[in-house]
């Protein structure tokens, strides 16, 4: 029997680990933004408009160091170039269920984690639906905005008295990526994963995190071109 298409609520439920992982990071961003001299409204606006964690932290550093607007903007844009690959990869996994009628809205929520969660779910046999993508995206986006707002209002040092909670929340995203990796692991993809991982390490050591991520993804994807 063909499984039914997952609902908005199923997507919202699947967003829970992402939302829990986003909260402390967004909270940290809110704190960092207010520490850098921006208002709580401005911190919230960055999360609302950009919605990309690493870019937002970089935006704070660039703007407070007096970088010109265009230089800052193009640096942030280059950081997120990898997202170009997510939509087509997701649509390919969706197969005949792939629908893009409302993609102008839900695809804005295709962050690294949302993409990984959706792809992992389809690798486990779940069908694609735009409702599910909306649920997944809303949970993650809502958590990102809520974490930013609370962090911006609370100010610095709110988790300093709770190191165990802070460590657990901080480990949420690496744990999520590892679980997602396990969920899509197959013999066919082992060379892709191994090359992507190795190149990410080398690229990060040589060029920094952004360069490592971009090179790792490209190297892994190019490895997939090799016919086996």
């Amino acid at each position: 029997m063909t499984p039914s298409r997952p609902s908005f609520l199923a997507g919202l439920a699947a967003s829970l680990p992402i939302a829990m992982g986003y909260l402390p990071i967004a909270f940290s961003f809110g704190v960092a933004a207010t520490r850098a001299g921006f208002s709580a409204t401005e911190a919230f606006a960055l999360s609302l408009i950009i919605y990309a964690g690493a870019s937002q932290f970089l935006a704070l550093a660039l703007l407070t160091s007096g970088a010109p607007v265009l230089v800052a903007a193009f640096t942030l844009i280059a950081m997120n170039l990898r997202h170009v690959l997510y939509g087509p990869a997701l649509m390919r996994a969706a197969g005949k269920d792939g629908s893009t009628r409302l993609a102008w809205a839900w695809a804005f929520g295709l962050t690294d984690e949302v993409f990984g969660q959706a792809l992992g779910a389809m690798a486990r046999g779940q069908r694609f639906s735009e409702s599910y993508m909306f649920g997944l995206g809303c949970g993650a986006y809502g958590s990102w905005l809520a974490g930013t707002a609370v962090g911006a209002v609370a100010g610095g040092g709110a988790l300093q008295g709770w190191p165990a909670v802070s460590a657990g929340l901080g480990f949420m995203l690496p744990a999520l990526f590892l679980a997602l990796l396990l969920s899509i692991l197959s013999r066919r993809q082992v060379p892709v994963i191994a090359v992507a991982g190795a190149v990410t390490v080398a690229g990060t050591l040589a060029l920094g995190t952004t360069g490592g991520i971009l090179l790792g993804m490209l190297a892994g994807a190019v490895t997939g071109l090799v016919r086996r």
Partner: protein
Amino acid sequence: MNVELLAVALLAGAANWAFRVLPTLARTDRLAPGGWLERFLSATGPAAIATLFVAAILPELTTDFARLLPVVTGTLAVLAVWAASRSVAGATIAGAVLCGATVWALG
């Protein structure tokens, strides 16, 4: 509202929207079935997740035993719960809980 911040946010946000939405709408995955583009795109997902895991775990790796141990126990918890339940959410939460519990136990 700081005008420079708003300008940077709008430019970066518009680019993010375009990067995430336009390739999805263009359905570039339908090009050349069975060809090089299809193989490239099908490898993109696993490559991206592997890359993001490595990028997330790299800063946690240290020679300081007290900082490394929570990462190790958290990672083992993810592997164990995944092996037992095949649940992404369960494995993720177990990893975070054990990582935090290890920090608490180490004082």
